[in-house]
């Protein structure tokens, strides 16, 4: 059903408010370089701030409210946040609100669900819109009645006369099919109307989630539906092509519908998923060897191929600052390749009708409108014939912003003339996207005065988009340069993109600079931060974890790190670790985090999300590492890519602060992950005196390092 049809079903009795942000203030959208077909590489995506942001709030005759957003529920709790905001903003019970998300026919394109900005922009946008609506309705009531606006107030989703508060005038009685366009400024932190209070709603999908009745894409079944999956090429999919395929045996598998070569890959299709897997196992294929060496010399190759792409920060005279310093410390840090590893593999269901000229795709994705656009390009048909239904996502983390599986399912459905559910195997989830969170090389040189002030810092960041020095520390002389290079596989957008790698490096480095001049890292960090809000955060963390410079136990230590996520959110994390010298195991005993993230819309969903982000940091610091070389990725199983599990999880305490830029929500989905890595690395250094210059810090590496010392 289209938006127009939806409104038609309401007859003339509705009142629709559409709002957009003041130009330039809205969510950046993703524009893609059309000359490059690589939909997974963030290099070919650029962010533009000029999206025509427009979300909708509709009041109908039955006094129900429906809101529309093109963003999707990833588990971050967006639906809960929107429910909390609109029910409170309009003073209506939850039963009267419907939240429509991610359906391209019904919902506006209001940008990708990424960058920790859905609550801050869509959520806060709805709150501001609700405040405007309250005023607008009062003015309407005054106009219609000829009375003064002062005599009316907004109550319970409608208007009442102050002297007769029991009688509520419904919104539709104030309008007959009016559409009101509004512009709201997301930087408006104290709009007229009400103050938002977190009432502690439980996740609004909770009952469906705990009973297994929330439908993800994989749970939808259509008549005549077939399963499909691709054969995993032995090399990076971008770096190889199919030379020959013997599919006789695969086609002989009973129940198989099709095994074929499609767009240079081998696909199997059957009504039973098990038959698909069997057929793919029986397919015999030869693939061209990638043209580059099998050996991947990560650091050397990153440096050799690098091109300077951007001077990210430049203040003062960095060389002069360094030469005037009492001491300088130069170090290089490296991070390893990691991946999303969502539990729900990439899945899409496509149904083509009218000889393939109309396609509906149920997608697990973070940006349905972009996916619709990409499907149109992939199939070379008009966007208007494509309908994407964004479903609840079983873990996105940046890996499902675009959804190649959606366009592939659409193509396969047109090919076989039946609904096709394309579901990646776990092996495909690791390998077929050919896209990884990049290894980065980060060179740092810092100069410091005898009194512990940082005078200068030079940072060269290879591969990350980079977040350098000035967001966190007050340093008079700064130079930060970004270098990029082409790579045999694509760079993934993944939780904390552009912050994770560099923050690990800079925060490890800060502790080494402190050590070089005999300062306690806690005191040193505190003395050099850029914003006073950081001091609060660091002190709060120290208090929570019971900071002591040296713990009374051998091989135990506490480390701290801080982060400024895009100028929106500040955070500090402290970690306490114990290192077992014989096994090399690092036991994280406790993590405390203090986060300056503005107004917390829903403490329940924010807390679990922040703990989860910290746990992502823990995995990145200690165990996550994709097995790959110059030709391909070889990770197939969870056992080969160790994401944190129950036995790894320490107690995690968090607090929310709101000092930095108070008054509105600022997002928190990624930031807590970022300083966690440096905090753990710093705690390990404190515990055993060994600095690890790369991630992940695995038990093998700890043992080796201890043997060397």
């Amino acid at each position, binding site marked *: 059903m289209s938006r127009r049809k939806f409104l038609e079903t309401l007859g003339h009795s509705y009142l629709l408010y559409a709002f957009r942000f003041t130009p330039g203030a809205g969510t950046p959208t993703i524009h893609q370089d059309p000359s490059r077909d690589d939909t997974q590489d963030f290099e070919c995506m650029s962010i533009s701030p000029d999206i025509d942001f427009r979300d909708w709030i509709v009041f109908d005759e039955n006094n129900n409210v429906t809101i529309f957003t093109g963003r999707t529920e990833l588990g971050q709790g967006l639906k809960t946040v929107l429910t909390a905001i609109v029910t409170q903003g309009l003073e209506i019970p939850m039963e009267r609100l419907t939240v429509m998300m991610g359906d391209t026919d019904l919902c506006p394109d209001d940008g990708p669900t990424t960058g920790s900005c859905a609550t801050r922009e869509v959520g806060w946008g709805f709150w501001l819109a609700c405040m405007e609506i309250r005023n607008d309705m009062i003015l309407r009531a005054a106009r219609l009645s000829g009375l003064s606006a002062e005599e009316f107030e907004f109550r319970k989703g409608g208007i009442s006369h102050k002297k007769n508060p029991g009688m509520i005038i419904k919104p539709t009685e104030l309008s007959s099919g009016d559409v009101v366009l509004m512009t709201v400024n997301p930087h408006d932190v104290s709009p007229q109307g009400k103050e938002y209070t977190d009432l502690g709603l*439980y996740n609004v999908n909770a009952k469906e989630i705990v009973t297994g009745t929330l*439908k993800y894409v*994989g749970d939808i079944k259509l008549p005549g539906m077939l399963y499909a999956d691709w054969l995993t090429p032995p090399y990076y999919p971008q770096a190889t092509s199919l030379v020959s395929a013997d599919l006789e045996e695969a086609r002989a598998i009973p129940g198989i519908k099709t095994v074929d070569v499609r767009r240079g890959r081998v696909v199997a299709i059957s009504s039973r998923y098990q038959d698909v897997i069997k057929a793919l196992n029986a397919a015999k294929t030869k693939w061209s060897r990638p043209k580059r060496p099998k050996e991947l010399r990560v650091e050397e190759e990153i440096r050799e191929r690098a091109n300077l792409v951007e001077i990210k920060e430049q203040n003062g005279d960095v060389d002069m600052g360094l030469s005037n310093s009492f001491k300088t410390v130069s170090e290089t840090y490296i991070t390893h390749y990691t991946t999303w*590893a969502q539990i729900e593999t990439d899945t899409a269901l496509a149904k083509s009708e009218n000889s393939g000229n109309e396609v509906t795709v149920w997608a697990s994705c973070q940006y349905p409108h972009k996916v619709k656009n990409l499907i149109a390009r992939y199939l070379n048909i008009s966007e208007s014939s494509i309908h994407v239904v964004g479903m609840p*996502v079983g873990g996105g983390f940046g890996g499902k912003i675009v959804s190649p599986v959606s366009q592939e399912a659409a193509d396969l459905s047109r090919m076989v003339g039946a609904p096709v559910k394309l579901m990646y195997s776990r092996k495909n989830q690791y390998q077929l996207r050919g896209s990884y969170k990049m290894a980065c090389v980060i060179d740092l040189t810092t100069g410091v005065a005898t009194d512990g002030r940082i005078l200068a810092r030079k940072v060269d960041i290879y591969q990350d988009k980079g977040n350098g020095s000035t967001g966190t520390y007050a340093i008079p002389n700064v130079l930060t340069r970004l270098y990029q290079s082409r790579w045999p596989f694509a760079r993934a957008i993944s939780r904390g993109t552009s912050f994770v790698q560099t923050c690990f490096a800079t925060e490890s480095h800060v502790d080494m600079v402190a050590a070089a001049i005999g300062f306690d890292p806690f005191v040193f960090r505190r003395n050099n931060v850029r914003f006073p809000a950081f001091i609060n955060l660091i002190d709060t963390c120290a208090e929570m974890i019971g900071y002591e410079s040296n713990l009374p136990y051998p091989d135990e230590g506490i480390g701290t790190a801080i982060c400024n996520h895009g100028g929106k959110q500040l955070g500090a994390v402290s970690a306490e670790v114990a290192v077992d010298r014989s096994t090399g195991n690092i036991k994280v005993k406790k993590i405390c985090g203090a986060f300056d993230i503005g107004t917390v819309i829903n403490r329940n969903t924010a807390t679990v999300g922040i703990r989860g982000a910290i746990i992502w940091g823990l995995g990145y610091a200690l165990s996550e590492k994709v097995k790959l070389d110059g030709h391909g990725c070889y990770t197939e199983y969870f056992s080969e890519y160790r994401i944190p599990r129950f036995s790894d999880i320490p107690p995690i305490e968090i607090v929310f602060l709101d000092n930095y830029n108070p008054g509105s929500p600022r997002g928190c989905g990624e930031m807590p992950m970022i300083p966690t890595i440096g905090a753990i690395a710093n705690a390990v250094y404190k515990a055993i005196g060994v600095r690890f210059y790369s991630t992940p810090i695995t038990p093998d590496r700890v043992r080796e390092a201890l043997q060397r010392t």
Partner: protein
Amino acid sequence: MAIEEFSLIVNGKKRKVRAGPDEPLLWILRDNLNLTGTKFGCGVGECGACTVIIDGLARRSCQVLVKYVSSGQEIITIEGIGTVNNLSPLQQAFIEHTAFCCGFCTPGMIMTATALLTINPNPSQDEIKDALNHNLCRCGSYLNILEAIESVVKKTALKGQ
């Protein structure tokens, strides 16, 4: 592979299904019986998203062939634990502790925890962590899951006194 008829006991009801004998129970539940609360995550028994209870034990349904559970074994899926209007104490606790983000691993977590509490109604925190150590949650909702399970243990202990 010949399609045969199998007789299963799922959530207390006898169900007849037609399937190949080597088909994993996971796909029988999802495709033949439309019990889609049991999720596919890895297909090799590593993630726990497909956990069901068979004769009282938490089992990975992707690793259980249908022919081995068609002679009277009692199979319980998440749909047999409780419904939206009649939640089990553990399901209620998961809601109250927001023990999930995306929710994809949640049915498997609840099944493993339900089996644990049936066998051992008063587990220690370490016993809970051990029992659930092979249920993966990429969102990292582990502590909330632990708190939810512990709250049920505590309530049970109070009732027992």
